[in-house]
């Protein structure tokens, strides 16, 4: 990107640097969170299957299938975001996963299920679905900002 404002366009020199650092920070934070969340679940897949089962959304084998695969998708996305390769598909996937989590958590709240969200450490003290949902919405916001920053960078400057 050349320095100096384009005629009639936004001043690129002002926005470029903060944008870069914000993107880097979001990548590391979101990537780190998902890497961490995924690794905790990989360490204890059977308990995670129990957490999934507690949502009462899937048949028994479906719970195990999710428990076997979902944490690995989380870890992959986390690693890709941190190292900055294939940021867009990784961030998009994280956004999609967070949307699914938000729907699942909302349905748990609506059905009045008193369950642990199963988001991070499996077993132990419960995290209420409300807190988990708020956290989830924060992740969604972060991912949307990250994707937006990414799109802006690759778009050709307005003529």
């Amino acid at each position, binding site marked *: 990107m050349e320095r100096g404002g384009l005629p009639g366009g936004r001043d690129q020199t002002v926005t470029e640097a903060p944008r870069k650092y914000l993107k880097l920070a979001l990548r590391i934070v979101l990537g780190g969170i998902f890497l961490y969340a995924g690794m905790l679940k990989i360490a204890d897949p059977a*308990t*995670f299957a*129990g957490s999934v089962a507690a949502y009462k959304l899937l048949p028994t084998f479906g719970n195990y299938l999710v428990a076997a695969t*979902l944490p690995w*998708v989380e870890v992959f996305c986390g690693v890709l975001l941190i190292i900055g390769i294939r940021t867009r598909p990784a961030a998009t996937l994280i956004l999609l996963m967070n949307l699914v989590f938000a729907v699942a958590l909302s349905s748990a709240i609506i059905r009045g299920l008193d369950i642990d969200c199963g988001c991070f450490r499996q077993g132990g003290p419960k995290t209420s679905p409300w807190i988990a949902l708020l956290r989830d919405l924060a992740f969604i916001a972060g991912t949307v900002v990250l994707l937006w920053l990414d*799109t802006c960078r690759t778009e050709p400057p307005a003529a």
Partner: protein
Amino acid sequence: MKPPRTLITEIVVIIAVAAAIGLAWNRQMLVESWTGKVQRSSPTVATTTDRLPLPLGVMQVKELFDRGEGYFLDARDAATFAGGHIRGARSLPLGEFETRLPEFRKQVPKTMPLIIYCNGYGCHDSMDLGKKLIQAGYWEIFIFEGGYPEWKEAGYPVEGTKP
């Protein structure tokens, strides 16, 4: 800007690779859950480490009684037990738990559902006994909190009462 098709392809590739590794990594768990072998260590209850006895109401207890399911256990002392108890119940006084556990273990398998009661809501011996039996490795422990008084009050079968 990349076309969305590339983006979708990349997403599919990431999911496919991650899922393949996940399936391979957890193949044993998946096979066991598919064949239904994993039920026991099944994590549907996330409290396997600190399980507590489950309280039951008199209706539920009567249902189990009628179906002949479960092993009724009287936590009160031997003399009180002799003065009347739920029909078919066995005596295991809380105070004699340690001395009688070895014998009890031989007679009752760990998978047997145990329904424990004592002298009603003010009495905590049944709950204490239940906790000890969980520590001793028993799997399904129910507490009939209403205990003998509620059972007798309801006119359900008792035995050992003096005429």
